């Protein structure tokens, strides 16, 4: 029986083996030997970060040509090269990426209810969206840390994940694990292309800044002594920080929560501090640019919008060429802002930094004369950016304003910046209350004229920056308030000698909420003047767009303010591939707005060249987020705001064009950065939170 059993089993086994042996010959599937070789070279983490099922899946995809040799996110460059060697390909370099946590809340954020469920963010999120009072911030239960296959995430003591940039491979597991989108994986290009989203951790200053600079981040970096890091943070959004550090009217500071304790944080003085530090360090920080795409882009107008657009396109790997009608780049920043506010040498240094990235510039080349949109397209420029600014001074609508001795504010400043030494005579009247009017008045003071600034409302209604108004007063500009020009009186040679004006009084508030000035009848008075400078507004000069000078038709739609019409999200004009931003699109606005819109236009141009269409998100932040705006905050220790020092005084100040305002010292900057409340959407550092941070906590 044993023999029978043994024989039976042996023969069945033999039969099965024979069948399998034959079958393996017949049914042999030729597997590419390279799959095995490549799999041996891959790290074997099976993390799925590449999007294929495990390393063998990735290896098969590489062999099939569905994935590049560098598909593995865990492997280092050497592995990619080895894999590429097996495939006989060239390695396409992948932009380095990192996981980034965008939430400042953590344990600072209050709980709305006591949560006792599973210690998992996804589970917590399902219960009324989590217990935190902030609808977007980190829930702090550490699901991301557990999801990380590389142990790159640790939960910090303040309830926020800390990402180790050395260990992070940007596999994106944490992004999938986080139910609230607190963690994102991004590289430089994605960072430059990102627009503020309502779901981001946006402190009020960050919402307000037209350029969307990550203000809390750079203040944190200054606090930590990482000044270079702060410069790089700003340069991710604003290439003209030396300029903005001097001339920005700081919309961000109007939203600073610190103002409900004492005074706003001096955000711009901190920007100027780090910007000047780089400026005077004698070397430049290296600005990384993405891999060359070989695409040519034309930028018409080298003002802040054009420079910003060119800078971001260059960093995204494209090749912009700036065309400018003036002898030097900078636009209104160069020709509209006087030397004493922004030294030209500093501006030159800053613009050179942008050009050194590989941006080409052709100056003294006038749009509409030397080239047109058609010739640019014929020259191989794939997209075109129009940022020609607003250079035409508005008239006073007063009789005699075309007499000699009347010169628009922007014309006057441009002539002066070009070194043409405009004749000012002994007495000058500047009409207007904006920054251009003040700049013109303070320039005239420095040229030795007795200067009167005429404005139809009172000082409180002046749109100019307060520092500028105070500066003008200090320098001896005479303010003639509540007065509006009636007509310009000239002599027999057609030269203006007097300005006749009405006295005004404030009446009912108008649509803009300001009390509108009303003429006092019979109050006409004459005032002698050698030069009258109306500086009451500017508008774009669109003559260059018209096909046959002024009379021809304009290929672009324009508004009654002479601005170009474009899509408000993509900045694309009616002509496909032609984009716009800056004053020519918005009408006269801030430098920082032009820079911000220049970046947004660059983003659209990048997407339209690389992907064909521009993605528009519904959650893009456009207005201030209502629930983040407070009228009061918890009691805080009061800390005094730093004061910007003046570099020159007395005669030096009113007789030369030396720079007036200086930068704060390092100690002042550090003290100022300590005043920042590190706001998130709704959380901020109260005294106790700041203290807790001080004692034994190790964020960052």
């Amino acid at each position, binding site marked *: 029986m044993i023999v*029978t*059993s043994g024989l*039976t*089993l042996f023969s*069945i*086994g033999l039969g*099965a*083996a024979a*069948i*399998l042996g034959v*079958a*393996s010959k017949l*049914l*042999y*599937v030729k597997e590419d030997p390279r799959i095995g070789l490549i799999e041996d070279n891959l790290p074997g983490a099976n993390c799925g970060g590449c999007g294929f099922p495990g390393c063998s899946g990735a290896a098969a995809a590489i062999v099939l040509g569905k994935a590049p040799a560098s598909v593995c996110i865990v492997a280092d460059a050497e592995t990619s090269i080895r894999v590429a060697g097996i495939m006989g390909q060239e390695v396409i370099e992948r932009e380095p990426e990192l996981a980034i946590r965008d939430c400042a809340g953590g344990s600072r954020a209050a709980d709305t209810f006591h949560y006792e*469920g*599973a*210690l*998992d963010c*996804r*589970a917590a999120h399902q219960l009324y969206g989590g217990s935190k009072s902030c609808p977007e911030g980190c829930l702090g239960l550490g699901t991301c840390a557990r999801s990380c296959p590389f142990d790159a995430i640790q939960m910090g003591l303040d309830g926020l994940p800390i990402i180790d940039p050395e260990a992070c491979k940007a596999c994106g597991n944490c992004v999938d694990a986080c139910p609230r989108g607190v963690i994102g994986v991004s590289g430089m290009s994605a960072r430059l292309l990102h627009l503020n989203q309502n779901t981001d951790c946006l402190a009020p200053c960050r919402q307000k800044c037209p350029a969307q600079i990550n203000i809390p981040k750079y203040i944190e970096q200054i606090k930590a002594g990482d000044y270079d890091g702060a410069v790089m943070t700003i340069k991710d959004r604003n290439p003209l920080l030396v300029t903005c550090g001097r001339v920005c009217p700081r919309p961000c500071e109007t939203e600073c929560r610190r103002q409900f304790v004492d005074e706003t944080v001096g955000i711009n003085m901190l920007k100027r501090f780090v910007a000047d530090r780089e400026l005077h360090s004698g070397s430049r920080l290296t600005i990384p640019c993405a891999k060359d795409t070989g695409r040519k882009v034309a930028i018409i107008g080298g003002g802040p919008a054009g420079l910003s657009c060119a800078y971001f396109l260059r960093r995204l790997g494209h090749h912009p060429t700036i065309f400018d009608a003036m002898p030097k780049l900078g636009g209104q920043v160069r020709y509209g802002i006087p030397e004493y506010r922004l030294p030209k040498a500093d501006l030159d240094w800053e613009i050179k930094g942008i050009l050194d990235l590989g941006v080409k510039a052709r100056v003294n080349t006038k749009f509409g004369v030397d080239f047109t949109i058609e010739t640019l397209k014929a020259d191989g420029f794939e997209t075109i950016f129009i940022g020609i600014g607003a250079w035409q001074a508005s008239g006073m609508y007063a009789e005699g304003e075309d007499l000699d001795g009347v010169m628009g504010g922007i014309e006057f400043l441009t002539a002066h910046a070009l070194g043409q030494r405009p004749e000012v005579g002994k007495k000058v009247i500047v009409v207007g209350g904006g920054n251009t009017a003040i700049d013109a008045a303070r320039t005239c003071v420095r040229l030795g004229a007795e200067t009167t600034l005429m404005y139809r409302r009172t000082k409180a209604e002046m749109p100019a920056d307060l520092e500028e108004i105070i500066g003008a007063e200090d320098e001896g500009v005479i303010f003639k308030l509540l007065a509006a020009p009636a007509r310009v009186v000239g002599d027999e040679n057609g030269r203006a000698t007097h300005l006749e004006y009405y006295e005004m009084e404030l009446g009912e508030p108008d649509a803009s909420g300001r009390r509108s000035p009303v003429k006092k009848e019979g109050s006409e008075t004459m005032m002698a003047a050698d030069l009258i400078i109306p500086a009451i507004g500017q508008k774009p000069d669109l003559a260059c767009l018209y096909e046959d000078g002024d009379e021809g038709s304009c290929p672009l739609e324009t508004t009654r303010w002479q601005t170009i019409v474009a899509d408000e999200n993509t900045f694309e004009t009616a002509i496909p591939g032609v984009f716009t931003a800056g004053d020519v699109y918005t009408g006269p606005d801030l430098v920082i707005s032009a820079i911000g819109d220049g970046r947004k236009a660059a983003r659209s141009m990048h997407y339209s060249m690389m992907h064909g269409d521009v993605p528009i998100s519904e959650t893009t932040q456009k207005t201030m987020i209502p629930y983040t705006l407070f009228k009061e905050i918890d009691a805080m220790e009061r800390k005094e705001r730093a004061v910007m020092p003046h570099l020159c005084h007395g005669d030096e100040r009113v007789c030369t064009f030396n720079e007036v305002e200086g930068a704060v010292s390092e100690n002042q900057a550090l003290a100022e950065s300590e005043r920042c409340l590190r706001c998130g959407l709704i959380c901020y550092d109260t005294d106790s939170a700041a203290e807790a941070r001080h004692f034994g906590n190790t964020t960052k």
Partner: protein
Amino acid sequence: MQEFFVLFIGAMFVNNIVLAQYLGNCPFIGTSKESGVAVGMGGAVVFVAVMAAAITWLVQRHVLVPFELGYLQTLVFILVIASLVQFVEMFLKKMVPPLYKSLGIFLPLITTNCAVMGIALICQREEFGLMKTVMFAFASGLGFMIALVLLAGIRERLAVRRLPIAMRGTPIGLVMAGLMSLAFFAFKGMI
């Protein structure tokens, strides 16, 4: 016809291969962590169980019975099923790549699956005909699949719940399997 229907329902629910007969517990616990995997595994079991039951029926009827080797049934079935699974894997890889892609990685796991073995043995014990054998194997495989997918659904939810550390993972899986088994006993009254 009614006979077949009763057999079908009976195999699927009343005498569920895993919840009532406690066969195939290792894959039942091992592959029930995610419902996607559970569906794949369940599909593979249905497929192999039908093939194995049919082949073993032929072996029993044409080899073991004529040569009076019934006492070698278990050994021979193991041998046959193992070879069969290997053969099926090769066959699918060559001939039906899409099916191989969805079932491929589970096939080697089933080589030693006692549920498949059990189904084949039950068919012989009950002395079913070939048609009934195939039917029974298919229904039992489906029953395994249902139990597996249900447990996977439960365990997916459990994964994010707060549990004592000692109970996390397999222990709570076993408890759940036990409770499911109790629940399935309710089907006993059906036939």
